[in-house]
């Protein structure tokens, strides 16, 4: 049975299955780093995505990548710093983030081209509730996103 991760934001909770077969190294690195929490940030270029900058780099390799995420995808990727993204500072050219795509019509752009994303988990329960909460937060302000192990 696949390992599962709980995703919580505001009043909503969902469950995601880790893609241990398709993204074994990313899934393991994320699992070991859980729980992770912080203020969720909405994408300003990617559409229906929120992301959480990682406090410590995981150094996950490129794995199970796509530039075409779909609703429910939990992703790991290198987000370019600089003018392109809000609230980024420091000398690094990228920061590692976990992204969550909650709706259609999402494509995560970098400064020039869409970014390849490691898809490491898929939300299989509660996607609608979590998406509804995120849409509410886009109008009312963002709260804390929490990812934790279900064991």
């Amino acid at each position: 049975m696949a390992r599962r991760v709980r995703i919580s934001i505001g009043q909503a909770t969902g469950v995601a299955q880790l893609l241990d077969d398709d993204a074994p190294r990313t899934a393991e690195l994320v699992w070991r780093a859980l729980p992770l929490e912080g203020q969720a940030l909405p994408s300003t270029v990617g559409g229906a995505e929120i992301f959480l900058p990682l406090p410590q780099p995981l150094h996950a390799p490129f794995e199970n990548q796509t530039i075409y995420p779909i609703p429910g995808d939990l992703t790991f990727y290198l987000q370019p710093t600089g003018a392109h993204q809000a609230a980024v500072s420091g000398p690094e050219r990228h920061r590692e983030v976990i992204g969550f795509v909650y709706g259609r019509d999402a494509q995560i752009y970098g400064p020039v081209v869409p970014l390849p994303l490691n898809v490491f988990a898929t939300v299989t329960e509660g996607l609608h509730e979590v998406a509804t909460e995120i849409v509410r937060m886009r109008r009312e302000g963002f709260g804390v996103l929490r990812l934790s192990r279900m064991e």
Partner: protein
Amino acid sequence: MRHVVVRFPKQGVQARARLLDDLAPTTCEAIWRHLPLRGTSLHDIWSGRQVFLPLQPPLRVEPENCSLYVVPGDLYYYERGPHLDRGRPYGYLELSEIGLVYGRDSQPWSPRGPKVVNIFATIGDNLEQFAAACEQMIWDGAQDLEILPG
């Protein structure tokens, strides 16, 4: 030379923009006739550093002074009819909007791809403080916005 003031009333932050009457006469006149414009602005989720004010009821303005490409300080007008974009973006079946571009690396964008917009004004002063208020909307959500003759 006509100007408008774009203002976040809650924060008391504003900027002044010159209307491009010579380049976009029809759009500028339509906007001017409807001032003051007030509503709840949202941060764009596809276009980068932009916020927009939905206009209710929609204005009807033809394409004019159009570009895909905007720079910080641009004010643009854009409209899409009902059911054009997939999935009611932002919850609006149809949308007539004023977009405010407050930072670099921005392009008006929608589920259909890049948007061709009517560029009708340009912010000349206090863009930096106004931009900070726009950027804060990424965390804080929707904010009341007004556009006044100035």
